């Protein structure tokens, strides 16, 4: 039995198999610093291993991590452990202080980034994803959400974050925690806005840094500015279509064929496909149309015949 258990552990650990056997065998899984003994609130050994593996791929954001009731540790993560202008995925994991195991049931609510524009002494928020949801079924203890930050920290202003958390009946929060927001490197511009009447909308491009030469899925969110502006901006309820025209300004506005427009999906995101024929700077010119196919933004075809509304992505 013991050999069998050990072998299973090796198989799971080395090959990263996601299949799960009977509970008897899970006692073979060992993760440093985590007590995997039975706890209904927490992950099974198999689930814990998947969570553990996931958090090796992201980094802790210390500013947004906290403790609740001295019983639970709340860990916030992003890909780099920092935040940057534009769309950022945020992940939360809660561990029991006593065992170190990952708690399956908790809620992150009211995430509120606020920026203080020092010169004008004004405050505004930014587009955020609705709520934090379970990342996926194999990792039930990871909650995912996003924020899309309008500006980076600079002389013009700085950011602070707040959110509430409830873990197994215990409540906690992070309030007005100052955090730095990095600028994106040259050739990257993933957040744009447009106005329809008095309403301001924001176009947040999701994680283009994962793109590669070839055909890529392009995903974005359209958020609408709130009044007052200090309330986080939720998803726009309208149904838009976002047409894309990817160009390489350094290559005489070379373009690629067969790109498909971004259309609204059930989850509220906009998804299409983009073809990139090589690496380098791609300027994705945008034409936003409403449900009646009227152009509401971009598509203004300036001198060069291209829209003035665009994202920049450098592969």
């Amino acid at each position, binding site marked *: 039995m013991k050999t069998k258990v050990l072998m299973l552990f090796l198989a799971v650990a080395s090959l990263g198999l996601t299949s799960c056997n009977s509970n008897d065998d899970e006692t073979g899984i060992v993760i440093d610093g985590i007590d995997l003994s039975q706890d209904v609130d927490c992950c099974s050994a198999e689930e814990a291993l998947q969570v553990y593996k996931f958090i090796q791929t992201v980094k802790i954001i210390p500013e947004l991590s906290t403790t609740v009731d001295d019983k639970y540790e709340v860990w916030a993560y992003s890909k780099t452990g920092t935040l940057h202008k534009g769309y950022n995925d945020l992940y939360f994991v809660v561990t029991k202080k006593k065992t170190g195991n990952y708690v399956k049931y908790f809620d992150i609510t009211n995430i509120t980034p606020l920026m203080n524009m020092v010169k004008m002494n004004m405050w505004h928020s930014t587009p955020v994803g609705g709520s934090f949801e379970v990342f996926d079924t194999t990792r039930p203890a990871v909650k995912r959400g996003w924020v899309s930050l309008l500006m980076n920290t600079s002389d013009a202003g700085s950011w602070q974050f707040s959110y509430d958390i409830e873990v197994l009946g215990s409540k906690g929060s992070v309030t007005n925690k100052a955090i730095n927001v990095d600028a994106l490197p*040259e050739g990257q511009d993933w957040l744009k806005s447009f106005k329809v009447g008095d309403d301001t909308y924001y176009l947040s491009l999701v994680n283009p840094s994962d793109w*590669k030469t070839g055909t890529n899925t392009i995903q974005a969110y359209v958020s609408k500015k709130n009044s007052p502006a200090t309330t986080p901006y939720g998803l726009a309820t309208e149904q838009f279509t976002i047409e894309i025209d990817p160009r390489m300004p*350094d*290559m005489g506005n070379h373009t690629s*064929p*067969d790109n498909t427009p971004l259309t609204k999906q059930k989850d509220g995101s906009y998804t299409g496909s983009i073809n990139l*024929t*090589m*690496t380098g700077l791609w300027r994705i010119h945008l034409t936003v149309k409403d449900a009646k196919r009227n152009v509401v933004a971009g598509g203004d075809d300036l001198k060069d015949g291209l829209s003035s509304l665009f994202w920049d992505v*450098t592969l």
Partner: protein
Amino acid sequence: MIALALTILLATDTIATSSHTIDEVVVVAAAGEGRKRSAKGKVASIDEHLAELSHVNLVRRGSYAWEPVVNNMQTERVTTTIDGMKIFYACTDKMDPVTSYVESSNLQSILLNSGLNGNPQSTGNIGGSLDLKLRKAGFNADPFHVNADVGYETNGHLQVYGADASFSTQRFYTNGGVFYRHADNYKEGGGRKVEFSQFQKVNAFANAGVRLSPLPTSPKGEESHSVGSSPLGGIRGGLDILEGTFIFDRATDVGYPALNMDVAKAEAFITSLAYKHQWLGGFFNSWETKAYYNHITHVMDDTKRPDVEIHMDMPGKSWTSGLYSLLSASNGRHDVQANYDLYYNRLFADMTMYPGGAAPMYMVTWPDVGTLNTGLALSDCVRLTEGQSLKVSAKLAWQTQRLNNEEGYRAQEVFFPGMRRSYQQVTGRVALNYQLSTLHSQLNVGAGWGSRAPTVTEAYGYYLNNTFDQYDYIGNPRLKNESAIELNGAAKFSMLNDQLSIGLDANAFFLSNYIIGQFENRLSPMTVDAEGVKVYGNLDHATIVNSSFTAEWKPLHWLAWNTRLSYAIGRDDKGDPLPLISPFAYTSNFTFVYKRLQGKVELRGNGKQVNYGKKYGETATPAWVIGNISGEYTLSIHKYALTFRVGVENIADKRYTTYSDWCDIPQKGRNVYVNLSVLL
């Protein structure tokens, strides 16, 4: 002495080479009767040797590395082998036809099989196949030889230095040498300098052979006689021979005035090991099995060009490994050859562009395509009656290609959604040639069918800019194989006591699924100044017809007049002219021999290009004619021979460009050359 042996060796080949579809230029050795040879001798470049072959034209992108065109078909439809070895160029812009990786000193001769009657190792030859025969000292040749060549040309200050040596015994031979060429920018007719036409090339080679089987005893006289009939020596019983060859070739700082870039380095390493068994009696003659390996590294360079909008790095790599096994047999009536060959080739090229300040742009232009190809070829030359013979040759080949580079595959998938990662093709050819010889005439007729798989550029090339028509080309993995039916005929008559002979030669290729770049207006070019994008596609059919007339008149034993006229037609499926088809061309020369002095006065020219491929971006080239003069004097002292050659090309310093000068770059203006070959 070696020269004599070699001439005889060539003479013994005439059973195979007597057909009008086969042509040969001799690089080394004194020209035998009727043998073709460059007036510059061994000092001539490979390109100049190639120019001597009928059916061959050369596309020039600079003064180095010309692309051979056979029967008005370019590299895609022509195969080139080095002693039967497959080798593939490494530059996506065709700056390095494989003939550029050898040097005159490496070669014995260049053999051209016109049309579908290819040499046994060639696969996919529709227009023809070239085999570069390596020069091996051979057993029982002169024990020790040293040869040196020096040459100078005024136009471009071309300097040539070469030296080689050979050592030969009954059991062992080796020969090797080094060759160096250097040229500055040349001047076109009228004296204007053609910028970026310089080059420099170093070449080294070594060959060795050893007899494995013990030497049988035979009378001395018979031995030396049999040397003549075979380079391996005609010894009774069997012979086992092991032969190795090696070539290193490196060209640096090569300018390409017709292109936007030059070449920093083009380097090849070519090697082979062969085992040969030779029978002396019975049905079988010889069985040779050769394993080979070669690789090419090609690095383009635009850093020396002014006004480069975007600096680019474009390296390319090609490596090939393979083997062939050739069995020959004869029984007096049949000459039979069977050849099995197998090779694996990998081609990778990429491009990085550096726009000032912004992020570099990268793409894979040849997605590391691995080609595994294997084929079986059979041929039989049958002597039907005295003066009548029939040659039948056939080959069947299979290949599989795989795109090994993920990024390149993903990029091409944008244009061909759902394209596969690997493709298989079957190709074949069969050719029949009948020859009737009488005392004063010779008649040949032939027919054949053959197919070829698309080249890597045609199937998987990615945004390859073609400066000829200013389009970016994208390969098409869904191309069908191209095939052709060939008909050919030739007749030669001699009259007036053989003082006058005239010949007519014609062939016609009826191509199906002809592969050529086709406009794709939907796509946007990558190259900043490009006109647009073309994607390779199959035309339903195309036709290429070549014809020539030759006359030779020898009024006196020391004087001969040769003239040759040729005309070709190429039409696509709409009846429009294909690009790069030679206009009416002619040469006419007088040669004279007085003791050890030989001389030649020549006129060469092309008519105005009337049927040019306008649709394919070609522009018309005006008519031109130039005059050349050359002389040669050989001095023999004891065993030593000294050959002195001098000549003037383009005597009138005419400014001209031929239809096959890429982007109409002008040809060399007046050029005076002198060279000296010493044989010790």
